[in-house]
């Protein structure tokens, strides 16, 4: 099985270990993983700002470089949502691109969904000593129905206990450009998340979207929490470095 790993711009720049962990996981599962060299940005920033032409341009670029694989896997619910739900909508009126967008959408999966629902093989998972709490990111949860999959995978990790926090489905206040444009509102929202995390007292917060995780980690640290680790689920499943 040949699959393309699409590494989001945030992972590339801010937390490359998430990409490397995803790569190791997929290879350990027996997939032939290719990282298409020309990949850049899925176009979500342009889309969410309301700039349809720019978003469409980048969607076409991504479609061209990602079609032709058995699957495309993305370690991010929000970028997966962009490919699966937005590309077909964005290019719906284009007779050439609409079918291509639909085909790509059908073959594109968020990492945990791919591992738990598509591959369904027993993975050699890393150990993890400690308790984690899982933050459900909005786009993955409400756009793609990701809820059971990450938990199923986490529970297979030896040594790990899962403690659910209150309001685990509540938004962390990131929202891409929202947290930059409306920094103080976003801070107010992420503060509530931090309080839920503090209350459950887990060793680590785990999630499937780097944007949310950077936001949560940034606020935890600024509030003076130096100990709660903030990890992408790929990092937990694959171990942080091998």
């Amino acid at each position, binding site marked *: 099985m040949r699959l393309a790993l699409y590494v989001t711009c945030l992972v590339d720049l801010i937390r*490359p270990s998430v990409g490397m962990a995803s790569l190791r996981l997929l290879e350990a599962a027996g997939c032939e993983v290719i*990282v298409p060299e020309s990949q850049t940005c899925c*176009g979500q920033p342009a889309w969410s700002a309301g*700039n*349809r032409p720019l978003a469409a341009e980048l969607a076409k670029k991504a479609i061209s470089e990602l079609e032709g694989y058995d699957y495309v896997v993305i370690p991010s619910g929000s970028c997966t949502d962009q490919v699966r739900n937005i590309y077909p909508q964005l290019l719906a009126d284009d007779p050439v691109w609409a079918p291509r967008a639909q085909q790509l959408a059908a073959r594109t999966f968020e990492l945990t969904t791919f591992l738990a629902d598509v591959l369904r093989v027993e993975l050699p998972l890393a150990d993890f000593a400690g308790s984690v709490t899982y933050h459900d990111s909005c786009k993955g949860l409400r756009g793609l129905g990701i809820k059971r999959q990450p938990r199923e995978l986490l529970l297979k990790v030896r040594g790990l206990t899962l403690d659910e926090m209150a309001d685990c489905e509540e938004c962390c206040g990131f929202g891409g450009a929202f947290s930059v444009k409306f920094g*103080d509102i976003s801070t107010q929202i992420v503060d509530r998340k931090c309080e839920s995390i503090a209350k459950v007292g887990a060793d680590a917060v785990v999630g499937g979207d780097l944007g949310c995780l950077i936001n949560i980690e*940034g606020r935890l640290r600024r509030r003076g929490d130096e100990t709660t680790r903030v990890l992408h689920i790929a990092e937990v499943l694959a171990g942080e470095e091998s």
Partner: protein
Amino acid sequence: MAGAKHSQAMFFQARAGEKIRNKVLQKALQKAKPLFVGKRAKAMAALPEDGFEFEALRSACVDIRNRVLGDLDVWLELFEEKAKATGAEVLWARDGDEICDLVIDVARRHGVTKATKSKSMLSEEAHLNEALAAAGIRPVETDLGEYIIQLAGETPSHIIAPAVHKTIEEVEALFAEEHGRPLETRTSADIPAMTREAREVLRQHFLSADMGITGANFLIAETGSAALVTNEGNGRMVTTLPRVHVVVTGIEKIVPTLDDFATLMRLLPRSATGQTISNYVSLLTGTKQPGDSDGPEKTVFILVDNGRANLLGSAYQEMLRCIRCGACMNHCPVYFSLGGHAYGWVYPGPMGSVLTPLYTGIENALDLPHASTGCNQCGTVCPVRIPLPGLMHRLREEQVERGLRPLGESFALKAWAWLAGKPRLYRWVVRRASRYLNWLADDSGRIRILGMAPGWTAGRDLSVPAGKTFHEQYAARKRA
């Protein structure tokens, strides 16, 4: 449009900052949110036990609302015909000013000097209270929440809980002052005693008012009736005691039949307050007939457009399905960080972020469609499946199409898209950016101030990696 001149929606950013720093407000909001969310969740969880399936009910409600919007003129004509047959008068208003003129005219014709009011958002759209007062007619709000904010000289901050932004202590102080009672005579937070006190004051008004003004949750075409859904008895007092009853409502509030109304009622109170049914549901039809013990001698319906007809057949038509349950704001993390006043006009929260630009002009509320994290909690709870984030997104697109976004923003997006179209250059720039972030970071690998995103780092530290970008690491691994 009439609302535009009163809209403060352009000042969203500034107001938001002010609301976030207001500790008293934050306390009130933090208390209210879990109540709303918890009650709705419980009511929805109990639906299957009551023999209903949520998604099926939702679909039925969507169908009813779509059916009405598909042939709005037909249903309105039918309503007018039926209402007139019951002895009511039906008037039409294009905008807020016309609402005021019509209500004042009705008041003058019937020699009215005081009007009791039950909650009506349209009278907020029209600033009816100010207009009435200017015409020498005293408006008295009788919904407890509305009464409180009328005393405080404020506007509602929530469509079903207008005073949700106030703490009990604030209300207690307000009552003590307004009702002329020394503050120490009652311990604060004795809510039943406060309610009794308000009720005593309001009773005098109920008995002396000549006119009652209400909104309507629905208009029923089949019978020409107005349906009022409330939790306080004031709605009945306002509609049955005074000689004249004026109903001010939007043209989209119509439903075809009583059956349809019953279907919508299965979701409206559950979505709003988590109740199976509200304390009072009144169906008001026509005027007092010989032999009736109460009811108005004169009933007037004022059916208002104020921007609604424009949405028919547009990309925003779905917004007209709204049944004003408030669930979207009750579940919105942004709303509950700010309260409703930050939104600057009558309708707050996600529905307001769509309605305010549409009713007062897109150029008058540029921030509102962006004041959303896109979490889609609102769309998930909306009983009539309004795709609120999708509509906000459409508004963002329209801003871009009309050149209403700041130049800096458009330029940054274009530059980014251009760069993303050149993979080799993109790779080089990301590498440089990675080194730059690294250089900015302190010993613990954190950036405390980032010039590019000052708002973000005002409240957060950005942790950056010491190593190379993913694509560098991947290339090195391939070579090895």
